[in-house]
């Protein structure tokens, strides 16, 4: 696992210019915008996407064939990609929060609780996005993966619209239903989100492992 992480970090070094550009953009956002949530989300999301690019690098030039002759298993390879995504996502979220605090102090707009709340809200979203994207990238590779992902998002959109339309036809007002849901406390909500994210992550890892086990190189 450690060897694979080192490999990916060394591969990401190739893209260090992009890293620097994104960080500069984030610093600009933090310096000139009062809305830190966008900067936090932007940096965490964009940097964690580098995980997907390491998968493309592995596949490039039939590299996977040699990679899987090294003392690694298909399971550990998959697990490493998730670890990398979490490290990059979590790391960049912390980094972005520090940026927000520093510039908040400078601009005298620092609201630590808001920064902390935003960072904590971004993390589950980040994990869910990666949980969807990593299996697609592993299954279809870089180019096809993006097309397949757009296809699935489009399909989800169509299903959503169809769901709303059907509800309308049946005379159900979805907004009212949502409004009438029993209100839960912040803590319970956080717990629900936490467990939902863990379950999504678990299912995603399982799917990715089975994708990798079925691959031939």
């Amino acid at each position, binding site marked *: 696992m450690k060897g694979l992480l080192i490999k990916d970090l*060394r591969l990401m070094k190739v893209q260090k210019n992009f890293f620097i550009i994104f960080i500069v953009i984030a610093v600009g956002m933090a310096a000139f915008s009062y809305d830190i949530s966008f900067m936090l989300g932007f940096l965490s999301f964009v940097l964690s996407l580098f995980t997907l690019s390491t998968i493309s690098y592995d596949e490039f*030039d039939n590299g996977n*064939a040699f990679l899987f002759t*090294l*003392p690694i298993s298909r399971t550990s390879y998959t697990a490493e990609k998730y670890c990398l995504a979490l490290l990059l996502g979590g790391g960049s979220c912390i980094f972005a929060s520090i940026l927000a605090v520093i510039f908040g102090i400078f601009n005298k707009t620092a609201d630590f609780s808001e920064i902390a709340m935003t960072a904590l809200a971004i993390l589950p979203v980040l994990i869910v996005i990666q949980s969807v994207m990593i299996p697609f990238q592993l299954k279809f590779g870089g180019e096809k993966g993006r097309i397949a992902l757009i296809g699935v998002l489009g399909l989800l959109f169509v299903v959503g619209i169809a769901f709303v339309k059907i509800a309308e036809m049946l005379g159900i007002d979805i907004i009212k239903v949502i409004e009438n849901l029993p209100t839960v406390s912040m803590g319970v909500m956080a717990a629900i989100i936490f467990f939902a994210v863990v379950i999504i992550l678990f299912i995603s890892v399982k799917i990715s492992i089975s994708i990798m086990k079925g691959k031939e*190189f």
Partner: protein
Amino acid sequence: MLKIEHLKKHYNNFSLDCSLEVKSGCITGLIGQNGSGKSTTFKAILGLISIDGGSVTVFGKDIQSFTAKDKENLGVVLSDSGFSGYLTVKDIIPILKNLYRNFNYMLFINQIRRFQLPLDKKIKDFSTGMKAKLKMLIAISHNAKLLILDEPTSGLDVIARDELLEMLREFMEEEEERSILISSHISSDLETLCDDIYMINDGKIIMHEDTDVLLSNYALLKTDQEQFKKLDKQFIIRTKKESYGYSCLTNQKQYYIENNPKIAVEKGTIDNVIAMMIKGEPK
């Protein structure tokens, strides 16, 4: 060390059914034309593809149950794959150090210096010879018991090929137990290196012989029509119609030299033996 029994793999227009064995302390060669099944066999041994039947055992363990730890005892060179071209030798060292518990840093770095491979240059910018040397150095850097080498000398000039073969000989001399399975389409490489040779054609092993026996006992008899008619064919393996008459492959060269002094006898080489095995008719 490595045993393959009726390994089967089916593709749309190709079927592999291969059995072979690499014994401890031996260098075994696998030779065949392009598309004959060499790479498929190698991929199956390494667990890179699923198999449709048969078994592959390495160090007495089925390849299906091979763990990451077991893989530390393998050194692998694949002709069409390697570490990402975007990495440098400097990048690879910590990766190998963390993947292989027996990674020999001093040996690796000394060999890198010996072959003048640059530490900071991206592998994709290496010459073909440099890439091949690096692949081989990686394979022998962690005290592997078995090397699986698929076309390691492909695309190299004579000098670079000799250096690579020398590297393998040194590797074998260090420990008696080590073994190598190597494929090549350059038969002279295998003739000087291998203890025994398997020939594969159209997914099937068509011949297995000790290299010494192949080179000393095999021969090509060149006969005209008349000589062919009178020829004792009990030790003839293959015959082939030629413009001058027939060429016949035998594994009893001495017998025919003694009994047919007028027949032209050409010494057996891997090239002419495999050509006859593929294109010749069984007697």
